[in-house]
């Protein structure tokens, strides 16, 4: 089984609440859920829609076709009716002009209940009955979902919707042992688990929900959250906090990230560990505020003037977001470098059921030295070492030694030094860290046939779509494989070379115009990429899109 429900309406109509309730009920009934969200950058009006897909099987992305459309406005119908599968239904209010749909007296019933806001809950009742999902699970979910004063009226609304509906399917509940979470929540939770104590940032979609999640738990977890005056302040402030010894973080979307770039370079020369993220949206400039793209890959890899070691990790899924964020803090501390997490609107916002995070798997490795271990009379913050990593002391925690960090080129003490010798040695010292970092970079995930004829290559949030495309294609012929990069800078090439040697055709899948991942492959390997499947319309690519494009490309070959 594999069903999708599309719910559409104007901004301000509360479709988020309807979707959150419905996806929670379906999740509690034990199904795997994937909810895709499409917003316009508006607070009122416009047209938003969300698609809840669910299955008893693993699912990794959204579907192009849907079984049910719940239209809160006429526009939902005109915009989306072509997505309806044959045999699918459209539910709307009786006042809508359309004829051949299921028209319900939603407005009237809600008015009778004395609360026009419960229109959505009546619709939820109807849908639950139609699908044959457990009434009790739904009712219990409602009891925990709404605030006390709203529970009764919503239960009533749900019942009414349930009773006016007809039943079509019988979906047996399964064991509910998963969590339902989006990428930004998972990222934030990863940071909290890793012990972030200072978070600062400036609101910018689609990054903001990380900050608001952390802020909601700030007092409970002892985290200072500061809404700064601008993103320039954000990274500089986070660096101050990290210098003072706490785990600190900031993040933004492309435009805000651009404002952090000077301070990113500062982190490079000061050798201050820091974790930050860029939740990409389509640029240039303001671009499409509420939509998705992977257009900042090159920007982030090269962000910061001058040359210094940094690491970039592309997050692939909510699960990845949690574990990689926690790992990023350890890597930043170990190498005393900035680690940039690259995500995007799609991953930030979609909800997905996954195995609950295992917090015992998270380790905290600070690599902060003890004052007694420092032999030099005067502490050398930038002492030359074999690894390029200098023992790190925290100011004020050290009782005798002084810690000096500097944005100029500096000598081992951190004092300004313009000599040729110091410059060359310090460049080598810092860049040596990049060589060592390379040895612990994670190779991309491989999915599919062990000897693929066709190798798909992607990074970050396209993970689910590519994975699902490969699994589907391999049902008919075991010829497909996919590599999806998480760690992307320094660029790991081993597995890419290995599978490229086996494959006849190499196809890159990414959400940008210039095929930036392909350009990295060109830069770091001798591999010839045969095709780039690109999407830069601001909407997330799914497995249907990939298969369709692949079929076009491979129509000359037998697959």
């Amino acid at each position, binding site marked *: 089984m594999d069903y999708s429900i599309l719910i559409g309406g104007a901004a301000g109509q509360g479709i988020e609440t309807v979707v959150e309730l419905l996806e929670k009920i379906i999740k509690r009934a034990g199904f795997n859920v994937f909810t895709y969200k499409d917003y316009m950058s508006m607070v009122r009006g416009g047209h938003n829609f969300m698609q809840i897909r669910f299955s008893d099987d693993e699912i990794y992305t959204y579907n192009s076709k849907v079984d049910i459309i719940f239209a809160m406005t006429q526009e939902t119908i005109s915009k989306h009716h072509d997505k309806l599968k044959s045999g699918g239904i459209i539910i709307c209010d009786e006042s809508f002009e359309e004829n051949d749909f299921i028209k319900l007296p939603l407005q009237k019933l809600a008015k009778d209940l004395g609360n026009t806001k419960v229109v959505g809950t009546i619709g939820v009742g109807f849908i639950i009955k139609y699908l044959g999902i457990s009434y009790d699970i739904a009712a219990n979910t409602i009891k925990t979902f709404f605030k006390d004063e709203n529970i009764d009226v919503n239960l009533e609304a749900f019942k009414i919707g349930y009773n006016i509906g007809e039943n079509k399917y019988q979906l047996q509940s399964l064991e*509910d042992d998963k969590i339902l979470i989006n990428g930004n929540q998972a990222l934030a939770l990863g940071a909290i688990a890793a012990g972030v*104590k200072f978070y600062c940032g400036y609101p910018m979609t689609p990054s903001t929900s990380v900050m608001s999640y952390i802020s909601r738990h700030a007092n409970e977890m002892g985290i200072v959250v500061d809404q700064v005056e601008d993103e320039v302040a954000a990274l500089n402030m986070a660096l*101050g906090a990290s*210098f003072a*010894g706490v785990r*600190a973080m900031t993040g933004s979307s492309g435009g805000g990230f651009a404002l952090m770039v000077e301070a990113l370079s500062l982190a490079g020369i000061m050798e201050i560990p820091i974790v930050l993220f860029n939740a990409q949206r389509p640029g240039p400039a303001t671009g499409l505020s509420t939509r998705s793209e992977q257009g900042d890959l090159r920007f982030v890899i090269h962000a910061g003037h001058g040359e210094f070691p940094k690491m970039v990790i592309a997050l692939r899924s909510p699960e990845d977001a949690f574990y990689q964020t926690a790992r990023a803090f350890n890597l930043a501390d170990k190498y005393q470098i900035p680690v940039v997490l690259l995500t995007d609107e799609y991953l930030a916002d979609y909800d997905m059921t996954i195995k609950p995070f295992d917090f015992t798997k998270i380790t905290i490795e600070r690599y902060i030295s003890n004052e007694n271990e420092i032999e030099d009379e005067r502490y050398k913050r930038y002492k030359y070492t074999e690894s390029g990593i200098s023992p790190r002391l925290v100011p004020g925690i050290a009782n005798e030694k002084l810690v000096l960090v500097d944005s100029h080129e500096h000598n081992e003490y951190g004092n300004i030094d313009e000599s040729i010798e110091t410059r060359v040695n310090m460049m080598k010292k810092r860049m040596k860290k990049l060589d060592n970092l390379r040895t612990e970079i994670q190779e991309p995930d491989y999915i599919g046939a062990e000897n693929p004829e066709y190798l798909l290559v992607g990074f970050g949030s396209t993970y689910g779509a590519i994975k699902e495309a490969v699994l589907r294609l391999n049902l008919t012929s075991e010829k497909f494989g996919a590599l999806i990069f998480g760690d992307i800078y320094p660029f790991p090439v081993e597995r890419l070379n290995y599978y490229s040697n086996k494959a006849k055709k190499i196809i890159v899948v990414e959400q940008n115009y210039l095929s930036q991942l392909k350009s990295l492959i060109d830069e770091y390997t001798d591999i010839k990429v045969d095709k780039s499947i690109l999407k830069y319309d601001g909407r997330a690519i799914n497995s249907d899109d990939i298969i369709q494009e692949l079929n076009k490309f491979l129509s000359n070959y037998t697959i």
Partner: protein
Amino acid sequence: MKCEYELYKPSWCPGCGNYMIRDALKKALEDLEINPSKVVLVSGIGQAAKMPHYIGLNGFNGLHGRALPPAIGIKMSNKYLTVIVESGDGDTYGEGANHFIHTIRRNVDIAHFVHNNQIYGLTKGQGSPTTALGQKTTLQFDGVKLNPLNPLALSLTMGAGFVARGFSGDIEHLSNLMKEAILYKGYAHVDILQPCVVWNKINTFKWYKDRVYKLNDDYDYTDFELAYKKSLEFGDRIPIGIFYKVEKETYEQRFPFVENGEPLVKAELNPTNAQKLLEEFY
């Protein structure tokens, strides 16, 4: 206990006001007997901003205009540190003006000493936000065309609880101001008149010396309107001293776990403490 603050050889020009400011700072810290390892000196970029290299303290010599944000991060992470910011007029009122305004809004417990030589020293003599209208510089050949910014009036109107002006030519007075600023609980703004002997031939040592006068002992520094009026006085006579000083709630006090707990840097990190947050996702 008496703390000695080691001094390193500066690259400032002979006769530069920065030397006196450094002497005043050293004296203030020694008088207060604060262990150097418990002080962090944060600066941006400029001649003034080189201070962390010339005195034995913890130091964060960051980016031009960006001295205040890291100072806030440091103080919030370890409230037991004495955090001092030293930077130029360009650094503070030009490139970093936005941070200046919002730092006042936060009222974090830091002392901010602005070396105001009314010129860009390091970059060789361009006009700064406090250079007088019409003054010819190495860039503004026919004179500065922007009106000067009034630092004290600005910090006063933004709600700063400690606003003062010092003069590098009076070390005793300046070092007392610095002590007061360091002891003050909250953001303390001290604008320091400092001659730049190379690039500002108008606001010379003599120019300042002839004009500055100390606020009277009976001056009421809790009177906001008086302070504001005094802040507008900048011409033939220039007042120095504490213009305004009142108690205000600090930023730290607005975070109960910061105010009442151990410094954040001492927190024990345990990933499983966050386990409970998973509840809402079931």
